[in-house]
């Protein structure tokens, strides 16, 4: 007879002293871990609930401006520095870690229409209603000096926007035409027009740095090539576009913030159909900015809220609002992709977390592992109705909520009408136009 009994030595399973860690032998045999899927589901449900519990995105409000904030700019080299221009011509430089204004300039008379930093971070440019372009030192005057711009350019017409080239000493302004300036000269290198109308914003492409995009109030978005000194092509939409923003990871993708409450992501190569129509806002979209990862963007709207959209989704994943925040005029996503800043009508700049439930600060490795695991679980079970409902739920102010309902009814009525029209006309004579194509009026080359 040969016999062996299972006989464990307790010493190898119990810690030796109280200072040791407890011993936890593992065995991954599935029969010892029954109900794997239901337990993971419950964990995912708990994680989703906790995510909503911890979703407290608002971090700080920077107050100090004496009029509505009209434009924001990021510092290219320092994460903590932010520049803002106000409707009374004042420019302030903020330190985000201290949450204080470190510098203040009375830059223009009337609005500061645009502000942009030089790629090296030593100076910045502003344009204002007083028909001037001014270049300022970032550091401010030394003791006893007067605050004066490095350069001032007097123009003939009002400038409404400015953007600096990402690599060279060149910047572009827009107003009645798009002007491209060398920093050293007081007259533009070239100015480009296509039709006669006021152009509201101009943006350099961060990857293909000689490309520009602009949007004008005659409802078109025009693309230019700096080398050719002529416009490339333009797309005319249903309504006016307020700003565009290029995707920092994909050179040919840009998103346009439109007056018709939607955002349109276009592929530059095929402008006749937008890649995606992002709809969730209930009023005109005023500003848009991409995350440095190029996967999400944030949009500011006249409906007193900002929303975060994934690039490939038509619905927003997040909406931020507070009771005191009025029409949001400008928004920026910080370069570390963790925070969002928005400047609004009621003179405040607000700082938000880009990921509402993220824990800030240094995480221990166990915390990090736990958040990673929970993230994966949430992804795995995201389509289960219960989890979906919880993760999608957002509280909205009553004005936005009721407007969403109203617009849903309107949209439904329009759709019904279209269906009826198709039904009662000769088959094939009335074509159904997709939501994407509907908004594009024409593409001109």
């Amino acid at each position, binding site marked *: 007879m*040969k*016999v062996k*009994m299972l006989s*464990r030595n307790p010493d190898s399973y*119990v810690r030796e002293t109280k200072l040791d860690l407890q011993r936890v032998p593992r065995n991954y045999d599935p*029969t010892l871990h029954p*109900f794997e899927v239901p*337990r993971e589901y419950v964990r995912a449900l*708990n994680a989703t609930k906790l995510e909503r519990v911890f979703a407290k995105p608002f971090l700080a409000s920077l107050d100090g401006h004496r009029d509505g904030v009209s434009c924001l700019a990021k510092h290219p080299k320092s994460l903590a520095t932010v520049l803002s221009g106000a409707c009374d011509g004042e420019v302030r430089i903020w330190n985000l870690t201290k949450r204080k204004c470190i510098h203040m300039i009375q830059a223009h008379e009337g609005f500061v229409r645009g502000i942009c930093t030089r790629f090296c971070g030593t100076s910045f440019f502003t344009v204002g209603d007083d028909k001037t372009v001014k270049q300022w030192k970032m550091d401010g005057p030394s003791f006893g000096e007067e605050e004066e711009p490095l350069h001032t350019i007097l123009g003939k017409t009002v400038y409404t926007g400015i953007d600096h080239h990402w690599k060279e000493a060149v910047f572009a302004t827009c107003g009645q035409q798009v002007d491209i300036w060398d920093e050293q000269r007081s007259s533009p290198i070239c100015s480009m027009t296509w039709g006669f109308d006021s152009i509201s914003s101009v943006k350099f492409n961060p990857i293909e740095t000689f490309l520009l995009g602009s949007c004008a109030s005659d409802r078109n978005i025009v693309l230019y090539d700096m080398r050719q000194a002529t416009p490339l092509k333009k797309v005319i939409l249903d309504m006016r576009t307020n700003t565009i923003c290029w995707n920092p990871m994909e050179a040919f993708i840009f998103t346009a913030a439109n007056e018709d409450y939607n955002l349109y992501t276009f592929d530059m190569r095929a402008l006749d159909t937008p890649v995606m129509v992002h709809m969730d806002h209930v009023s005109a979209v005023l500003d848009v900015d991409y995350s440095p990862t190029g996967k999400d963007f944030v949009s500011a709207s006249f409906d007193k809220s900002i929303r975060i959209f994934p690039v490939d989704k038509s619905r927003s994943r997040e909406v931020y609002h507070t009771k005191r925040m009025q029409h949001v005029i400008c928004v920026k996503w910080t370069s570390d992709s963790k925070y969002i800043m928005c400047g609004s009508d009621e003179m405040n700049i607000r700082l938000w977390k880009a990921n509402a439930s993220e824990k800030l600060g240094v995480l221990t490795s166990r915390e990090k592992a736990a958040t990673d695991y929970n993230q994966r679980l949430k992804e795995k079970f995201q389509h289960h109705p219960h989890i979906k409902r919880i993760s999608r739920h957002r509280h909205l102010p009553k004005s936005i909520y009721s407007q969403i309902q109203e617009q849903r009814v309107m949209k439904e009525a329009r759709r019904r009408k279209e269906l009826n029209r198709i039904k009662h006309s000769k088959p094939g004579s009335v074509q159904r136009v997709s939501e994407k194509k509907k908004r594009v009026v024409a593409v001109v080359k």
Partner: protein
Amino acid sequence: METVPKPGSRVPPKKDKLQGKKKKPRRYWEEETTPTAAEASPGPPRKRKRNRELRPQKPKNTHSTKKSRISKKPQVPKKPRERRSPGPQRSLSGAQDPFAGPAPVPVEVVQKFCRIDKSKKLPRSETKIRSRLEAAEAQEEEISVKAARSELLLAEEPGFLEGEDGEDTAKICQADIVEAVDIASAAKHFDLNLRQFGPYRLNYSRTGRHLAFGGRRGHVASLDWVTKKLMCEINVMEAVRDIRFLHSEALLAVAQNRWLHIYDNQGIELHCIRRCDRITRLEFLPFHFLLATASETGFLTYLDVSVGKIVAALNARAGRLDVMTQNPYNAVIQLGHSNGTVSLWSPAMKEPLAKILCHRGGVRAVAVDSTGTHMATSGLDHQLKIFDLRGTFQPLSARTLPQGAGHLAFSQRGLLAAGTGDVVNIWAGQGKASPPSLEQPYLTHRLSGHVHGLQFCPFEDVLGVGHGGGITSMLVPGAAEPNFDGLESNPYRSRKQRQEWEVKALLEKVPAELICLDPRALAEVDVISLEQEKKERLERLGYDPDTKPPFQPKPKQKGRSSTASLVKRKRKVMDEEHRDKVRQSLGQQPQKQEKAKPAGARPSALDRFVR
């Protein structure tokens, strides 16, 4: 032994290219050692030859070396060293790794950890979804290989009992085993002579550390049976029908004559649940925190012990219920009835999930093994049957016992114990997932009284038997899972660990409505509601948004965009689609014909009339 390829090997070209591109900074010693080592490697020539066969193209750097550190000669550019190459590698000392690459993993072990069914083909879908599915599948495979590899770290081996040639292990009595094994194991065999309070029911806690037993005449005790430390001993002055630990050893449910009572580990009565009356059998579902009770009145009641609510009270409509067991794989409760059927219940359904006709007479005992594949039943017709629970519910094997078994229990490694009268028989199978073969018993043991309760102790090679004369703890080598998981149920856990585990377990309490026959159903695609949703959407929109738009030829330049050529291109695409359709329908037809024709039959003249 077959081996599984490395998980990464599915998509090798990309990876290799990447690795090839990345140049590792060359250290001064590398250049010195490699060539000389190649010269001076002490391995036998045969081996080297084999290696050369494996990696024929490897260039040997024979240029010199010892002074290269000092002399500033321009270095000859060399091939970047490939990392993780499958061939044998030369180490610093020059010795070659005879077992290069990752260690091989046996296929059967990988199979055990595999969660996806490889036999199912991936559905025809969009390339995006398809590539995502493929990536998920590759990841799954990698995980199972990793898990299989971690088997190596398991510390304990299962026990066994083998006779000499021709010796029947069933003839080996307990005294012999006790004599042969070590003292620690021998101490696990004991008898408690408790003749006074009559036949006992018993229950081990989930960690296998604690034992609770209750006698018909009201004697209830719980003890740490390994150290033989008594936790509590009381007499409830009422008949005790069944006894069961709740999620931890601190709580004890006792089915008494009238009502269900819950005691703590000091014997203090915490609750008396009057809504559960005249209970005959108790069963605790640890992951759902449900206490299932079967009553004389024919009700199966689920009590949520974490909140103290009754989740469901189901009327089985089959008279008195006194045979109950749970399926540890899917938490389905199985009731045995006097008409010979076994019914499967979930708290989410008012009706049984399934009914299985098992015996001619009434069912006396039911047991389900830990993998949830086999169910053993015994009936009044003296039969002992083993059923397959995976879908078909067909009997796999059956045998007649002279007296018929009154109690059945499965061990963690698939041993089946049956109590017939005052004898306990144990049958063993081939392995963990195979059914026990009922021909030859593995062990038998005669007790001093009639068997009244049976349970294998988890994680110990011990079978606890409650009988008329008290409690017997039998040694059954090879019964239990040798390696426990410290985070699930740890017999050696400290108080702090238990508390932490309790909080975690309560946080991930599975809702009662998720109990169903297939516990993995939650991870499957819900095709029915998907189709329903699609239908509703189609109705709402008035058109199908997923249909492919008709082909529109792209305009071409330089006069190639004439109407004729546009039409020609359109027709080309249309014809291609038509051909595809025809090809598909042709592919389906021959199968039908093959089915109709019996294989190997000669053609008959009457075939022409076959439709």
